[in-house]
């Protein structure tokens, strides 16, 4: 099998709304697109045992994560008639209220974009070797586990 190009998805720090806007604006030249679906993950200030989460610190096993993401990307493009797909995941410390995940799918008709977006988010949460360390306001921490 031909080796596919591995794209980076990781960005240091939170994902800015202006970055999202730039990415949306770039698609106005692709006039065969009829639908965009966007998922944004935002860090929540959950209360756990009386302590509030003030930030999540994300780390990854980058080589394995990008290989897995390349595989997911290929499978999603094979399954849905997408025009394009963009994925960004934060690393480092992301404060409550900040955005840590940005999944952006586009297609001619809406079903492909929305179904693909949902599936990619699901797969990112389940299959990418990424870990979130929840930092509480008193600077103690616990390791996050994704719930379904």
């Amino acid at each position: 099998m031909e080796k596919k190009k591995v794209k980076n998805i990781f960005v240091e720090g939170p994902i800015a709304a202006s970055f999202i806007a730039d990415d949306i604006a770039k698609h106005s030249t692709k006039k065969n697109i009829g639908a965009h679906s966007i998922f944004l993950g935002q860090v929540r200030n959950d209360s756990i045992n009386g302590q509030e989460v003030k930030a999540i610190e994300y780390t990854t096993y980058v080589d394995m994560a990008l290989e897995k993401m390349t595989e997911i990307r290929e499978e999603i493009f094979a399954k849905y008639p997408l025009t394009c797909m963009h994925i960004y995941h934060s690393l480092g410390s992301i404060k409550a209220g900040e955005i840590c995940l940005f999944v952006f799918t586009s297609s001619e008709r809406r079903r492909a974009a929305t179904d693909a977006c949902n599936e990619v988010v699901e797969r990112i949460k389940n299959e990418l070797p990424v870990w979130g360390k929840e930092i509480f306001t008193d600077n103690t921490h616990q390791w996050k586990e994704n719930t379904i």
Partner: protein
Amino acid sequence: MNATIQIMAFGKVAEIIGSVNFTMQHIASTNLLKEYLLQLFPELSKVKFAMAVNKKLITTDTAIDVSANIALLPPFSGG
């Protein structure tokens, strides 16, 4: 024997081991490696973790080649 393997630990596993990357003597299979690590770091028995050999998640006992890269992976929590 000078054969070694590279171990990378992540998340809570790295915290328990106190080190993110280290080199150790070659061990023949993932089950034997896990046994060895649990002896060395009894705290690890309290954590669920999976292993990857050369970036591939393994689900059954797997032979470890000399100079393999092993990763110790607690439950993922990205997104």
